[in-house]
């Protein structure tokens, strides 16, 4: 806390007093822009656009929505990279993955539940199956179901949506099969509670209070109910592992859960749990794409800063147009 108050004091003083800083020259205007103009015209021709941005019906514009070409390129490049990394992974190249503490804790939590003879609660978020996070949560559920079936622990899965219910049943069934214990699947433990957010939430809170699961695993797409779920679970003293890529709910999970899987970490869960080369290759692709993105960002910033004060078409304009803006 002292560190923080010191920091706050320094910032406060800095803002209050201003300060005398040695003058620096104003940024230089960008120099020659004729090259950029030529590139711009070339782009017009390829895209099939006139000088005012209207369509000519030639070039790409005839059937492709030219504004979306950068998106198309992003998806294609991502797909190609994924193909390459998967080939490499199949050929035996090892891909290591950094530690994600929350996932290491999940096994531990299931183990503890077994020791205490209490069930494990898996909340797959409250969105519909059209949300990719929900689809993804179903894949994780399969692994969790395999673990609980192996340990012989009850797994309760309350769901908010009827389609998710079908998927959740399939996932738990498949997980039990994976563990070689198809008898471990209990149909009434995958429960449709309600399609209404807070009614669902109250239902889950009720399960937490009555059946006292020893571990609450909350992975998926969450909305305002996240705090109530985390808080209710906290009251029962269960180990809580939560994860979502929905940033608005992360503060509350960070606050009230023992472990939190943040943002993109969520999409690395299956790869982390299975170490399947195929999935690791996908994560690797995402990492590489991030490096590309950062490089492009820095290039763009340098060009844009150089272009400050320049007249006409600059390289920054060309760059941004290529980036889809």
């Amino acid at each position: 806390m002292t560190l923080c108050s010191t920091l706050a004091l320094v910032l406060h003083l800095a803002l209050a007093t201003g300060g005398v800083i040695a003058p620096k020259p104003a940024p230089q205007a960008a120099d020659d822009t004729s090259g950029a103009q030529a590139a711009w015209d070339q782009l017009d021709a390829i895209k099939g656009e006139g000088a005012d941005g209207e369509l000519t019906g030639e070039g790409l514009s005839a059937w492709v929505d030219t504004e979306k070409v950068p998106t198309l390129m992003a998806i294609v490049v991502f797909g190609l990279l994924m193909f390459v990394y998967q080939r490499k992974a199949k050929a035996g190249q090892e891909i290591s993955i950094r530690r994600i503490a929350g996932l290491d804790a999940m096994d531990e939590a299931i183990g503890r539940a077994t020791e205490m003879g209490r069930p494990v609660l898996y909340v797959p978020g409250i969105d519909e199956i059209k949300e990719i996070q929900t689809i993804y949560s179903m894949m994780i559920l399969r692994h969790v179901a395999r673990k609980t079936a192996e340990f012989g622990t009850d797994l309760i899965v309350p769901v908010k949506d009827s389609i998710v219910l079908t998927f959740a049943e399939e996932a738990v069934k498949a997980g039990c099969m994976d563990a070689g214990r198809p008898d471990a699947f209990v149909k009434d433990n995958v429960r449709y509670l309600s399609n209404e957010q807070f009614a669902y939430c109250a239902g889950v809170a009720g399960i937490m209070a009555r059946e006292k699961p020893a571990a609450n695993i909350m992975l998926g797409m969450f909305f305002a109910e996240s705090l109530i779920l985390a808080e209710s679970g906290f009251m029962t003293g269960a180990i809580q592992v939560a994860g979502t890529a929905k940033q608005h709910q992360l503060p509350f999970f960070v606050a009230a859960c023992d472990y939190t899987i943040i943002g993109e970490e969520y999409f690395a869960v299956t790869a982390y749990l299975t170490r399947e080369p195929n999935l690791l290759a996908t994560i690797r692709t995402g990492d590489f794409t991030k490096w590309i993105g950062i490089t492009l960002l820095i290039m763009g910033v340098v060009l844009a800063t150089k272009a400050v004060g320049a007249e006409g078409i600059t390289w920054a304009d060309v760059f941004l147009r290529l980036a889809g803006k």
Partner: protein
Amino acid sequence: MFLALQEAVTEAPFFTLDTSQPGDVLGAWLVCFLTLAVFSFLYKDNPFYKFAEHLFVGLGTAWFTMKYYEEGIVQPIHEYITSARAAGAAGEVFELGGYPLDTAWAIGFRVVAGIFALFLLSRLIAPNGWAPRWPLAIMVGVYAALKMTGETQSKLVLLLANAVAPVTDPNKLAWGELTQNPGWRIENWDMFFSFSMGIFFVGLICALLHFVFTFKRTRVLAGVSKVGVVTLMITFGSMFGFTVLGRIALLIERIDSLDGYTDPAYSLAGDSGGFLTMAFSPPILLGAVIALTLGVGALRGRGGDSA
């Protein structure tokens, strides 16, 4: 009682569907009872709350069922086929997604959709059959593709493109009111702006690198990741602050709304004024009844489940 947005009401009908009326007595008592019943959960799980909760589940499910029935079954199947047939009979051009289409094809496609929908229902009879998987597979494909394309466009490509900005800009001031201090502005260069943009870009890049999983965790990358975590935590902190603001605003509104029903027009004691009118107004009377019931239950030691 105190300053509230609701209009003062002199006389209210017992029940009305006319929206130009300020409100009805029955509605006032229902709203107050349900509001207080939900609030009673804060004390502990109790019969009032359970009643409100189950009413809520039933109504909520019915509300969504009707919405899906109207928008997802009647409109796309019944009304669509009716309008396609009408267009076919009149010899008009029938368009689907802006593309002109023969009406026989349009109706045929929709009939196939109806058959697939029945496949889905076959789950009620044969839970493990193959049939429900077909429509489910189509749904997964459609939604996965929709999200993939749309989000890549607006939240990846355009988001990065929009982040590109000069770190110096003579036309831009940083921090709004903060830069009224002339000490930070030198000719046409605003130091605060450059400093702030620097913080922005460093924060963005470090936070992105925190989400790199498979590259070797060198000391540099670990340090960068640490800076990224700091940025993320401050972000979460500010989201936390704003969420507090929003939730408390909702609570204040509920209290304000309850207060509006202390109006004499809703009171059982009529608007004779004074203590009785207030005591027999819906929020006060219902609040007292709920509190008394729970209190007596607690004293006898046989309330509902503990919260």
